[in-house]
């Protein structure tokens, strides 16, 4: 990690090499170790360290972007030249007025030395605890355990500067028997919060309980969906609907429906970059401080997230949710919270007359019909049939195909606990378990 002073020095040096009206530069530093295990042994153990610099220059309304991980003086000069050349080839962007002229974003503590300094031996010791749980039943453990330190520095020619650093520790595991599997994961800013044994214990228990699953017919079932499974849905809802572009282009389930009830009254979803219960990030990749944005409020579509350019299209200001320049999508929420309810998961299962408990979804795809948020996906790693409030037996995996607007209009219970789920892309979701009525399962598989 370079630290704030050194990172901003590099960016200011780069900006001094650029001879254009405006320029902004972002430095992304990362040091990450990852230990992967399968068949109850470590099979991959890696470390990476990199610093990437993104430069965006504006010649009038013509914008050029260049990116490099070479930080010596000559390479920075080349980066500046290349971005300027690209801007020369551009056509003017009518929606560009200026880069950010922003105040310093509030600081939010998200960096833990324990995580940043975690070594492969410590990760191996945590993995050992997971494997020990699987060993108790003669099962095999697979999974990954990572510890990462990130820093992001921002500077532009208008004098805006920002700096933030955070850590993340993550573990997932699938415990496998000859006829079943069980999943658990855990994310935290601080590795000291980790209880790897608990992660292994939960996955092992699901694996043990889901042995010898029975086939069950496809159809509509009331379901209790774990936070891990809700997280998969939330990632797709964000991707197809919570950014400004899909709304503006009319492709999204939010398009033309702001102010309208599109989900149940008990559903509220918001983004809050400052909330330390997620993976906080106080500003975006355009240096704009993040606003807390209500996306769905008591079922009503309220807002989407904006970058500078997407906001200008509607005469608005950026909400501070720009992704790095050059990404497919301009703006997305990255610290998403789903409003909790007042039930325990056990109470939710106990309320099922005839239904399913889903512990994980797999390979969801949300592109079937984005206006309806029609999704498909599979259950995975432990699905159970529940009758009269009792888990009766494990079932073979099922495919669901359903509109998430309809599903989220039929949420009968929400857990009072929410769980942090680290995104493999940017940020995180903090989501509860849900009980959904009449969820549509359209197919089944052989295991």
């Amino acid at each position, binding site marked *: 990690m370079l630290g704030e002073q050194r990172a901003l020095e590099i960016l200011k040096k780069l900006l001094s090499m650029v001879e254009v009206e405006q320029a902004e530069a972002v430095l992304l530093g990362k040091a990450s170790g990852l230990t992967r295990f399968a068949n109850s042994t470590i099979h991959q153990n890696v470390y990476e360290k990199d610093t990437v610099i993104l430069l965006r220059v504006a010649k009038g309304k013509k914008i050029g972007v260049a990116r490099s991980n070479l930080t010596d003086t000559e390479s920075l000069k080349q980066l500046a030249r290349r971005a300027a050349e690209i801007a020369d080839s551009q056509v003017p962007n009518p929606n560009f007025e200026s880069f950010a002229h922003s105040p310093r974003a509030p600081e939010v503590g998200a960096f833990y030395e324990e995580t940043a300094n975690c070594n492969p031996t410590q990760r191996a010791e945590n993995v050992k605890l997971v494997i020990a749980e699987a060993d108790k039943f003669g099962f095999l453990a*697979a999974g990954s355990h990572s510890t990462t330190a990130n820093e992001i520095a921002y500077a532009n020619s208008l004098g805006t500067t920002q700096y933030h650093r955070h850590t993340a520790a993550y573990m997932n595991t699938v415990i496998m028997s000859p006829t079943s599997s069980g999943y658990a994961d855990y994310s935290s800013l601080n590795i000291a919060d980790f209880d790897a044994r608990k992660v292994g214990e939960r996955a092992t228990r699901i694996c043990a309980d889901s042995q010898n699953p029975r086939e069950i017919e496809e159809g509509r079932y009331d379901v209790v969906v774990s936070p891990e499974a809700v997280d998969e849905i939330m990632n797709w809802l964000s991707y197809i609907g919570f950014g400004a572009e899909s709304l503006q282009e009319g492709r999204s389930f939010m398009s033309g429906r702001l102010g309208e009830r599109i989900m149940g009254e008990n559903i509220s979803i918001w983004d809050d970059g400052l909330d330390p219960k997620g993976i906080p990030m106080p500003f975006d990749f355009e240096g704009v401080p993040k606003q807390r944005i209500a996306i769905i409020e008591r079922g009503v579509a309220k807002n989407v997230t904006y970058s500078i350019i997407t906001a200008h299209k509607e005469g608005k200001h950026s909400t501070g949710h720009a992704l790095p320049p050059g990404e497919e999508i301009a703006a997305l929420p990255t610290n998403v919270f789903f409003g909790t309810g007042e039930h325990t998961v056990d109470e939710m299962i106990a309320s099922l007359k005839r239904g399913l408990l889903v512990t994980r979804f797999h*390979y969801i795809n949300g592109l079937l019909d984005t206006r309806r948020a029609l999704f498909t996906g599979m259950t995975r790693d432990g699905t159970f049939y529940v009758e009269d409030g009792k888990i009766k037996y494990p079932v073979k995996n099922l495919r669901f195909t359903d509109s998430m607007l309809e599903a989220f209009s039929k949420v009968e219970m929400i857990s009072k606990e929410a769980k942090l789920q680290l995104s493999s892309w940017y940020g995180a979701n903090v989501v509860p378990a849900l009980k959904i009525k009449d969820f549509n399962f359209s197919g089944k598989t052989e295991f």
Partner: protein
Amino acid sequence: MKDALKNVLDKIRQAVDYADARLVTTRSEKILVKNGAVDSIADEVSRGFGIRVIVDGCWGFSSSSVLTEAEAARVAQEAIEIARATKLLKKWDVVLSEEEPKVDTYETRIIKDPFSVSLDDKISILLEADRIMRKNRMIRVSEGSMQFYRIDKVFLSTEGADIEQTIIESGAGIAATAIGNGDVQKRSYPASWGDTATRGFEFVQEMKLVDNAEKTAEEAAALLKAPECPTGELDLIICGSQLALQVHESCGHPTELDRVFGTEASFAGTSFLTVEKMGNFRYGSEHVSIFQDATCEGGLGTFGYDDEGVPAQRTPIVEKGIFVGYLTSRETAAKLNRRSNGCMRADGWNRIPLIRMTNINLEPGDWELEHLIRDTKDGLMVDSNKSWSIDDKRLNFQFGTEIAWRIKNGKIEGLVKNAVYTGITPEFWASCDAVCSAKYWHIWGIPSCGKGEPMQVAHVAHGASPARFRKVRVGV
């Protein structure tokens, strides 16, 4: 830097069972045009090296973007320390299959270097295609993209391998989205991911994006008025680009031998094609033959050597319907007492190689497409992927396509929209009764195949021509 890495490998030779080093520089250029404007042009350079070691039978890997011999020595030592941590949970020694260390060079054969073509020339093609698509008043979003890669990589090993490769990739595509009456319909050309190849700018020129823009927009607009895909069992003709993804998901991934051995279990999943099935399991009908072929000219999965220094090869996966082979690495091949068929590929200098697809190609048959349609009484012809999902053993799949045509009594009756089909992999491929000829065969590049933790994106390809599958479940 290559000499520095050689020196470091020499110095650690006594301390390791095996080590290799990869020095990689990737330059990319991505252009996106949207709704008549250049949305973004991004140029990226990433350079660094990774050192992979086996110490006492255990893997370790570390990497850095600081290109000095001192840093290489530090990274090598770090990799050794990581391998020692791996040893804490060691169950068996890593053994690599035999491989003669090669000293060689390889370079993609191209006619026109894409990085020598001006940005203005590239942008003008995309803007013109975009302008034509937007002439259709139903089109709300018009898009075009180009992307070019140049990857220079050096592979060195303590066994004596010394391989330098330059891989060049060029790709492009356009898409039109029509919106009306609460409906959204998109058409892409030449496929929903465009198309990409290990070729020069000539590949993009041959696509004729501008010439195909009007038809792309017309089809998107026409889909708004088309009836919904029927529900039931129909005979299905799957056109090339969609069939490429079908091969990718239902044959490519389940034949990755690391998946089969469980090393992707917690993330991407495992595979139904377990080792006892090799050589005797009926994967599909006699019309189904599939090869992995990293040697075919221009394929996006074409190279000289994989990232373990194993030469590119053409090996059978499915022969006349029987499952006969996997995609392998030196470590996994050794477990089957075989040699690697060269499928280890890494997404850059800071990633270890994993087993990845190369070009996984469905062999052409002998049908004319026209005859196949005429021979189909009650069917659907589908093309261009819209959605994809498959279970974690690669059995139950569901695909949606951008476009479909209803076939009745040997004739195309018209478009249908929101086509979806589903099945179980071996049952589905067993229902294949016809594959079109080499005249229709094309290698479709897929530049977005995800696998592994940390996530790695591989550039792969699939050769396919249209094929027919009997009694497939369609509709939701």
